[in-house]
């Protein structure tokens, strides 16, 4: 039944009256990495009252004439098994890392490498935000690149961007990368 259904889906997709291009972006990372803060920052919302996400948040942001549907899914250990339910038809994976949480670099690296192997994310571009650069103890983006062996990722485009979701520093640079590498290609 799978094939017929997929066919029907593509039909339904075309039913949409809008001509606007859409991108599906999934925002993942360990708990307390700053995913929801980043999401709210992207949507220009207040980032002060953010609590740990138990489910998921969605925001649609228009960016360079494209509609970005960003899905932020809770990162707590007990929720992580649900991540793979949200990966279908993803155009971009944004992975957020708490750069100051050195103790969990290994854990976050492991989660990332498992994600990369997911069938649904095959070849999907990856943007890593090395978040919390506003903290003095934060590792730099290049340190994280080393630690996570990002250089071994050769099956897709990837980028690591240092940022502070709270102050917004670096976020725009990451978005520009998205614009240059994904939005333009999609068009």
């Amino acid at each position, binding site marked *: 039944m799978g094939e017929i259904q997929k066919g029907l889906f593509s039909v339904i997709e075309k039913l949409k009256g809008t001509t606007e291009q859409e991108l599906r972006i999934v925002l993942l990372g360990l708990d307390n990495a700053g995913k929801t803060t980043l999401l709210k920052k992207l949507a220009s919302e207040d980032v002060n009252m953010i609590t740990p996400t138990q489910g998921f948040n969605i925001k649609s942001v228009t960016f360079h004439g494209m509609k970005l549907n960003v899905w932020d899914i809770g990162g707590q250990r007990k929720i992580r098994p649900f991540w793979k*339910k949200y990966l279908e038809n993803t155009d971009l994976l944004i992975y957020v890392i708490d750069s100051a949480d050195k103790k969990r670099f290994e854990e976050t690296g492991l989660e990332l490498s498992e994600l990369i192997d997911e069938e649904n994310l095959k070849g999907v571009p990856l943007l890593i935000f090395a978040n919390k650069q506003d903290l003095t103890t934060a590792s730099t983006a290049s340190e994280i690149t080393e630690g996570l062996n990002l250089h071994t990722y050769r099956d897709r485009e990837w980028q690591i961007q240092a940022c502070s979701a709270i102050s917004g520093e670096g976020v725009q640079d990451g978005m520009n990368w998205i614009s240059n590498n994904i939005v333009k290609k999609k068009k």
Partner: protein
Amino acid sequence: MAEDSEWVVESIAGYLGSPEWLIPLTDFIENKCSVFDDEEENKLSYTEIHQQYKQLVEKLLENYMQEVGISEQQFLDACSSPFAKSKTLQALFQPVLATNDFQLFRSLMVQKNVELQLQALRVIKERNGALPECLTDGTDVMSELEQQEMQILQEVLKRSKEEYEEEIARREHVAPKVGSTSASLGEEPVRNGTGPQAAAHTPAQPINSLGKKEDKVISERSSDSASPKASDNCSTETRTLPAVRVPVKGPAPPPMSREKTANQAAESWLEEARKEAGISKPFRELTVAQQEELQQRAEYLRQQRDKLQALKKEQKGKSVAVEETPSPTPTPAPATQEISVEEKKKLQKRKHLAEKLKEEVIKK
């Protein structure tokens, strides 16, 4: 080819307005919508329900397309034809689009949930004459409710006072000699007099501390309304009160218990009033006990809603049964209506159906 896609669109649009489509879909939405609230964050369970919804819509559409003999390509052509982009058709297609658009799906579910809750409230209202205050929300209603509450409160206080005075009068008859027991009881009337007032305050205070303006009104009102009465009590009771205190000290407990029941009644009413007032506060501002109450009420509401659903289901079942008897083949029915409008389409559709039938007959 354009004509071809036109009848496909019409046929599908007809199906999307038919009970074959609407009943299972509405059933699904009504059964599953209760977990959908309008919190910003989505629950993981929404995704599961969305998946089930997709499957249902696909199954229904596919069955129909197979039945009528519309191929996917035809469907695709039809959907991209300008004819399909009209507003009325777009509205019909909403539930289909929701399979691919989580946000749209979510808004459908949230909307249905709110609708059902409102319906449940209406049913409760019809059944009980008035809506229990605990189930209303919003400030405009609240002020009315507050007034009602205060009336009830005053009534209760009045009655408990009457009972109390009656009791005193009776006591006085029975034991008049103790009336002069002592001067030390001089304070007592005051304390007794403030009794009801204190009772009125206790529930009002916590509400007040929750920091909403209306609540201040409540507490003010309650003290306003209670205190004149309390002072009434004082004046009328100065004579009688010494007699009252006697049984407390004395060996006869019945008046005491009588007094107690009256007080208890008042307290339970007050408790009730407090609960009802409590519902209008933002959830996190409530105490644990109040949250529990709120949850209980939510549960009650849910139950009412479930009943409503069951009722609806029954009705639906009936209406289907009724419909089925006069027209054993409901699908062509709406089609026939459209046909009378345009001859061409009618012919095409008939031809198509005939072919389909022939095919089936021959196959069998």
